[in-house]
Structure formats: structure tokens, C-alpha cells
């Protein structure tokens, strides 16, 4: 295992291969316990380009967290750490459908006025383009207020 610039964690989750500069955005959509240690790494050297890393002591991600991360950082990998060892490592996968993770950015969409669950289909994965099932508008990641 190659040398890390930050201390290893005993139990928790490491998010690797976050696009450089996106770590704080990814952090903002997760809700780590305020008492736990979080390490934020920005502009680390990656294989071909710079990347960000997040390390969470104790945090376990839920399915909806992973879906959100996939939209923000489609190439991210998730490492589950138990007792200083990586017990599971996987790449996030952009799902085909995303339900109720954020509001539709279109102020004229019916979901904004009727308190309806939002539904998006992923029209394109690289770059990510999402289409609201209701108003049918398409959005890129920058337009979505996660």
C-alpha cells in the first residue's frame, strides 16, 4: 500500500478519487457526526491528475449517500475500513434513476409546489445529465442544488 499523507483511520470510510476541488461539496451532502474525525485532502497527486480525498472516522454510508456521491464524483471509490484494514473497496456507480435526493432546480416544476417526491432519470453519464421525470427539463450537475 502506498504511503498516505494523513493518518490511517481505525474504523470508517475513505472516499478516494473525488475530482480535485470537489471534496467540500461532497462533504456538504454527507452528515458525519460532528464529534468524529474527518480528514479533508485537496489536490492530492493521483495517477494521471489531481484528486481530493475524504476520510471519515466511524461513518457508514447509506445507499442515498452513495447515489449522491456518484452524481458529484462519478469516478470516486469507497473504501470501508475496519480495524485499519480495507475490508471492502468499490467504485460508485451512477444509477439510472434518482429519487427524492434533491429538489428540481426548475422553479416552475410541479414538484416544487405540491411537495411531490422528485424523480430524475440519468440521460447521460459522462458528463452527467439528469432529466426531471415531471417537468422533463435536463440539468447538469452544477445546476443541481444537492
Amino acid at each position, binding site marked *: 500500500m502506498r504511503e498516505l499523507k494523513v493518518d490511517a483511520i481505525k474504523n470508517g470510510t475513505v472516499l478516494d478519487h473525488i475530482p480535485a476541488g470537489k471534496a467540500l461539496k461532497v462533504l456538504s451532502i454527507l452528515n458525519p457526526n460532528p464529534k468524529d474525525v474527518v480528514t479533508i485532502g485537496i489536490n492530492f497527486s493521483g495517477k494521471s491528475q489531481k484528486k481530493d480525498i475524504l476520510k471519515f472516522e466511524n461513518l457508514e454510508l447509506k445507499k442515498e449517500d452513495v447515489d449522491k456521491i456518484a452524481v458529484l464524483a462519478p469516478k470516486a471509490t469507497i473504501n470501508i475500513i475496519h480495524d485499519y484494514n480495507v475490508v471492502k473497496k468499490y467504485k460508485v456507480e451512477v444509477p439510472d434513476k434518482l429519487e427524492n435526493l434533491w429538489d428540481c432546480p426548475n422553479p416552475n*416544476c*410541479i414538484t*416544487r*409546489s405540491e411537495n411531490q417526491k422528485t424523480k430524475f432519470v440519468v440521460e447521460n453519464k459522462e458528463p452527467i445529465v439528469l432529466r426531471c421525470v415531471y*417537468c*422533463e427539463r435536463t440539468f447538469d450537475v452544477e445546476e443541481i442544488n444537492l
Partner: protein
Amino acid sequence: MQDLISMRDLGKDDILKFMEIATAIEKGDLKPDMKGKLMAALFFEPSTRTHLSFETAMKRLGGEVISMSGTANTSVSKGETLADTTKVISQYADIIVMRHPLEGAARYVAEHVDIPVINAGDGANQHPTQSLLDVYTILKTQGKLENLNICLVGDLKYGRTVHSLVYALSFFNPRFYFVSPENLRMPEHFLKDFEKLGIKYSEHLTIEEIIGEVDILYMTRIQRERFADMHEYEKVKNLYILNANMLQNVKDNLKVLHPLPRVNEISTDVDSTKYAHYFQQTKNGVYIRQAILTLLLGGVQ
């Protein structure tokens, strides 16, 4: 098919089925009987033309209509949700036709009621019955849908009618000509889709440069409400005005269409030429809506 919400839900076969039924109804070969069926026309945003066209269609089928136009003095103005309002009406009627200012409203209602829902316009999103009547008009005037040269003029960026129509026509190997000012061009993602589908298109700044080549000239209104800057609107509002002089060297089968209402895009001197077809287009709207109502109410298999 349970509902008609968006052209995006329809395939080529669905479109052709609507054409087939509308043709049979117009020719008198098919006389669906909707006696005893009740259509609720819910126009949360008033619309004279579409509303009357639907009422006419249902009545010509022998069915009956209950109607709402605008939301003043209704449960909506008391703060009732759209879901509740339409759930109640679905207890009375057999089918709902609705127009609503919010985008996605028709799909949302369709998820909440057990009777068929027809979208008669949801904000800037979809107006599938307009697109189907446009396709029907093109079929009737040209005798076919495949391999036509089709020119769309005006606001190609925001025009809901334009977007649904090109989507529907994409099934029939069209050659598109897009005429618009630079800032109202067809959105890039449409152009990319055409390239993927192998559909030929070109973009132009004037009608004159392509009018001799086309079978259908589809004019649209440049909508003032789309412009935040009135100065920008003033620059483009009179850019495309079709007059009878421009129709001298055109194909014999050319037809000029417009979803109406027009402002000044088509001079009245065009009305009396053999190319003008926008008023007949509205009549086709009744046949196509008869076909849609018939299909969704189970009047044909």
C-alpha cells in the same frame, strides 16, 4: 396506453396509430360512440382554442363535457392541492383533459388518479395534442410522413411546440431546415441527437435562402414573455415575416403551417394563397383529439 402526457412517451407505432384512427374518423369509416362518457376539461390556465377543440371533439363523439376555466372561485383558490382537486373530479368523470401553468402537472395528476389523463399543455413543457395534430396535418397535405423537407422558423430555443414536433418527426427520416436568429437557435442537445440519429439538418438566418426547397414551412411566434430584456425582443420580433411575394418560387406542394395565434409572422396576404394551411390545421386538431379520446377511452382496440 393509459394517458397522453408527453411526446417523449410515444414511439413511431403510437404516432401512426393516432394517424390511422384520426384518418378513419375524418373519412367517416370509423364512428366511435362515446355516449355516456364524460370528459372533464380542467383548464387551470385559460386557453380558448385548445379548450374548445377538445369540447368539440368529445361532443362530436357523442360524449359529454364538464368544464373548468381559470382558478378563480374554485377549490384551487382556497388552497386545495392539485392532487386532491383532480382526485375528486376523477370520481365524476371518465377522462381528464388538463392544462396547467406548472411543468409536469399532467404527469403528476396521472400518478394520482385512476382515469386517463390528457395533457393539454403544462407550462413551457409539453403540448402533445398540438404535435400530433401538426403531424396529422403534414401527413394529410403531403400524403406521407417519410423523407420530407421541413423548415421551422422563429423561436427554436424555447418553443415547446417546435421541440415536440421535431421529436415526433424524427421517426420519419426528415430533412430539417432551422431558421432563427442566433440567440434563439435550436438547442445544442437536439442537434447532437439528430447527428446520432443520422438526421440531416442545416441552420439559416433567413427564410428566403431555403424556401424553394421545402415541403413544409412551419412558422412560430417569437414570444415576448421569453425575453428578460425587452431591447433583445425588439431586435428579433419582426425578423421573420412571411408575405405572399416570398411564395413565388416554391415547391407546388409547399404548405405553410402555424400553431396560432399569429401576431405578424404571416401577412394576411398569404391567407388566400394555396400554400396557406394554418386554419385547416386547427380543424385537424378536432379529428386528432377525437382519435386520442377514442383510443384512451377504449373506443377502439
